[in-house]
């Protein structure tokens, strides 16, 4: 167990320190960084899904007044390295091959954005078209098992004898569940401003991690990491899609090399985002549950088929949730991939857990119906004593308390389980429940410094970022408690590779990683300079060791409840209420934490009812590639969504006692809605999103 810091500022609902700048719009995002005499970029995109560029004619584009140059694979600066592995996504303008529709195959550099956009449209390309394939199905003969799935998990697991257990089980639920291709769609489109001068490359970027951008890009550009600076003081959301640099960063870096030091600005358009900044793979999931008549699971099968791009393998860890969630003695999980001519998939909020828990938690609801059991009680009966996967005890697993507390607040005890039995004013009403889980992830290699300033304030520096999670505020609170001073005496600096090495804001682990390093720096500072430092005193530190991490299984848990109304005639769905109860270790800032829970639950609601990217198999592009047709929930869709949490700290996790909160809210949310829709209508929808047409067959 690590020694935790005393909570004085932590636990207080401080208003966002960056809030004032944001409500007036003065907080500068990447594209808004003031640079002198910039040039504007507009990418040229492939309009075939697979093939080769035979000819590319940039003459018309280049003759347009205001166009500085047009870069293609024929004239772009060369990247360094072999372009293998994950770098294949970043290997732009280096060859004539097209691997997916929408791939960047050129970029216009011009005096204004209007000219650049116009010129990009004037570039003429002749292709050699090769057959392409973008259609995922579970019966393809080319499905393969990746070596590992995302976050380093095993591809398959087998415990016990699943076949025998399913054959013997008195109750069996065995169905296929599907989730569609989904897009993160942060409100701020990916953007970067690049300056290449004698000092190297400076990039103002919309990213979840300044250091990860530097680590990935420096070798590609043949630069020492010290000659690449990445700056991101404010980031307009990411939800995973900004967790690594994408092709546009490289495009900007290439263009910046040919402008004689003039800055270049590249804003990825909303439509382009559907091709080049990642997406969540569609999934086809078989869940097989075997149970005794009292609901106790004897077997759990979770077999997943999903896609990856042909150039970069990304294997969503969809089935991992079924390895540790319930105490089934016989368990099997599988991940199989189809490598297709699609854009490169990547992280989207709770990769793995979000789609996986949809399938598992709807199946559990089906099991509750099959056993005639209350779905809350069914889950409590299947609570494991130790982590079924690792055999280690949980550092905290108050799942049952979350279920019970949520049930109490939601008025669950008066619920009649009969489906399609509550018609009021033409609307069918129903309620549903689902469990949530997300692992505690501790990223290593973080450092921070503490400096005592002449103004009597402590400056605390680390290359963390705030993508809307509240880092500016919560990390300041942690720093204040680590230094045992009021928050007013702390001045936080983040969002710059000139600051010490910091992990990406991802895996709900940003604050854990950065906060631990800040605690380490504060302790080093106090050891060196005591309580009465002099101006200019400075110390650097890293995260303290956390030996307990080896002995315990650490996860956050939650229970989600949803109330839906479904119009009996049209099938229109409304969600008057959602409630989440979570257990996540300590909550550093209740105000911003509640926002994150509610926001993630809202994204889960959106996943349940709205989100679906439709790939056109003929051309390989997403048809609904804008916010008019790829729907995300808007104000009118979101009514009473609330989140609460159990009061606790997890000292085994880190010196703050926190486990992370950014993703768990989306896990299980869509299942709770789907289960409520079943309760309301009697119709079991197993493929997302639940649109009105699926309620009429």
């Amino acid at each position, binding site marked *: 167990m690590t020694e935790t810091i005393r909570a004085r500022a932590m636990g207080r609902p401080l208003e966002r320190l960056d809030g004032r700048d944001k409500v007036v719009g003065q907080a500068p995002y990447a594209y808004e960084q003031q640079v002198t005499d910039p040039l504007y970029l507009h990418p040229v995109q492939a309009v075939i899904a697979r093939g080769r560029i035979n000819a590319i004619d940039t003459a018309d584009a280049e003759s347009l007044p205001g166009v500085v140059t047009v870069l293609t694979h024929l004239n772009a600066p060369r990247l360094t390295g072999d372009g293998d592995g994950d770098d294949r996504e970043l290997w732009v303008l280096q060859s004539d091959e097209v691997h997916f529709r929408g791939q960047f195959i050129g970029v216009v550099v011009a005096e204004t954005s209007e000219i650049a*956009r*116009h010129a*990009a*449209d004037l570039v003429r390309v002749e292709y050699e078209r090769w057959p392409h394939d973008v259609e995922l199905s579970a019966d393809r003969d080319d499905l393969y098992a990746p070596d590992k799935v995302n976050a380093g998990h095993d591809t398959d697991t087998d415990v016990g004898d699943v076949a025998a257990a399913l054959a013997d089980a008195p109750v069996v639920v065995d169905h296929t569940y599907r989730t569609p291709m989904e897009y993160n769609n942060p409100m701020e489109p990916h953007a970067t401003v690049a300056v290449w001068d004698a000092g190297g490359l400076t990039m103002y970027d919309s990213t979840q991690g300044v250091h990860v951008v530097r680590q990935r890009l420096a070798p590609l550009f043949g630069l020492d990491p010290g000659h690449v600076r990445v700056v991101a003081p404010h980031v307009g959301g990411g939800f995973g899609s900004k967790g690594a640099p994408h092709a546009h960063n490289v495009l900007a870096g290439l263009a910046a090399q040919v402008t004689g030091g003039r800055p270049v600005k590249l804003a990825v*358009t909303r*439509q382009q985002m559907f091709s080049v900044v990642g997406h969540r793979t569609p999934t086809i999931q078989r869940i097989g549950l075997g149970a005794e008549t009292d609901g106790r699971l004897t077997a759990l099968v979770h077999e997943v088929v999903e896609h990856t791009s042909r150039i970069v393998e990304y294997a969503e860890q969809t089935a991992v949730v079924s390895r540790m969630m319930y105490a089934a003695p016989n368990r099997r999980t599988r991940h199989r991939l189809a490598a297709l001519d699609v854009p490169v998939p990547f992280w989207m909020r709770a990769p793995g857990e979000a789609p996986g828990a949809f399938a598992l938690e709807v199946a559990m609801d089906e099991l509750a119906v099959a056993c005639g059991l209350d779905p809350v009680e069914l889950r409590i009966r299947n609570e494991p004593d130790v982590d079924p996967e690792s055999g280690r005890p949980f550092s905290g697993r108050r799942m049952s308390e979350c279920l019970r507390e949520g049930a109490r607040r939601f008025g669950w005890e008066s619920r009649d389980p009969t489906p399609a039995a509550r018609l009021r004013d033409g609307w069918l009403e129903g309620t549903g429940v689902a469990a949530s889980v997300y692992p505690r992830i501790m990223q290593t290699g973080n450092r921070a410094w503490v400096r005592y300033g002449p103004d009597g304030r402590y400056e605390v520096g680390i290359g963390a970022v705030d993508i809307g999670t509240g880092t500016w505020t919560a990390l300041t609170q942690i720093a204040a408690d680590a230094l045992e001073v009021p928050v007013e005496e702390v001045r936080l600096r983040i969002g710059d590779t000139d600051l010490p090495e910091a992990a990406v804001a991802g895996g709900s682990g940003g604050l854990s990683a950065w906060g631990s390093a800040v605690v380490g720096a504060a302790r080093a500072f106090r050891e060196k300079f005591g309580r009465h430092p002099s101006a200019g005193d400075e110390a650097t530190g890293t995260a303290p060791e956390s030996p307990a991490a080896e002995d315990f299984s650490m996860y956050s848990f939650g229970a989600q409840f949803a109330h839906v109304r479904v119009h009996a*005639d*049209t*099938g*229109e769905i*409304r969600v008057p209420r959602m409630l989440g109860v979570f257990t996540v270790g300590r909550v550093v800032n209740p105000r911003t934490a509640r926002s994150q829970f509610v926001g993630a639950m809202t994204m889960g609601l959106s996943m349940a*009812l*709205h989100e*679906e990217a*439709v790939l056109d198999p003929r051309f390989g592009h997403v*048809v*609904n590639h804008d916010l*008019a*047709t790829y*729907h995300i*929930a*808007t*104000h*009118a*869709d979101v009514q009473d969504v609330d989140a609460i949490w159990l009061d606790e700290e997890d000292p085994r996790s880190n010196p703050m006692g926190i486990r992370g909160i950014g993703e768990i809210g989306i896990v299980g949310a869509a299942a709770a809605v789907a289960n409520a829709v079943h309760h309301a209508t009697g119709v079991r929808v197993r493929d997302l*999103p639940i*649109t*009105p*047409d699926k309620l*009429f067959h």
Partner: protein
Amino acid sequence: MEFLRPLSWEEALALRAGRPDAVPIQGGTDVMVEINFEVRRPGALLDLNPVRELAEWEMAEGRLRIGAGLPYTRLIEEVGDRVPGLAQAARTVGSPQIRNRGTVGGNLGAASPAGDCHPPLLAAGAQVEVESAAGGVRMIPAEEFYLGVKRTALRDDELIRAVWLRPAEGPQHFSKVGTRNAMVIAVCSFAIALHPAERRVGTGIGSAAPTPLRAAEAEEFLAGELAGEPAWGRSLPDGLAERFGELVGRAAAPIDDVRGTAAYRRHALAVMARRTLTWAWQDRLAGTGRS
């Protein structure tokens, strides 16, 4: 791209005659999307905003003449009580920000099959006033205006001046199903207008065929069933609204697309037709809709 800014209607028509490549722009909410995405790069834009009379409305010959440049929000506020079906549809167009700028004229010019204003214009029997410098004024019935997806009866040298429609003679309703609760492109939509004096019910279907259209068979069915004075003073006969709904569903020629299946569209149209007829009839019997 040239930017043409006529200050009067005559000047607009003259500019239009000389520049068939110019794209007329009013609120900009449709045209600008295409320009921002390089979907089209017109040689010129013909900005009709300075033409003040386009943003006005008047009563003439017992009919309402709504200028093509009247923003939705003003239409709702200033004449909504006289054209309730159109006003209901206008309240669902895009977002409030779009409604502050967008116009019925723009909706007609864009001629998207999903445009929200088309069904109530069809149901109300509206006419579209178009004009050219050479050919003068033409009055085109709404149902003859829509020729195909984004194609209209407007000639190259013509501009839309106004839509004409009689103030509601009876109850009117508009209904729309979407996959989001607001700011949504219709999966399908339906409008109904009772015309008691003519013993007739007008209909309009949106988003369920290449063009907005009337449900002619359903209209004829109702006219036949409700022939004669007494029928219009009594409750609707049992099963009539259901049958009407079925005929409306059958009138559509929907497709499966991102927003919904063809089968669901027919189902939803039948539901909306049944509901809106029931509401309209209740309004009529209660004397709440104009009649």
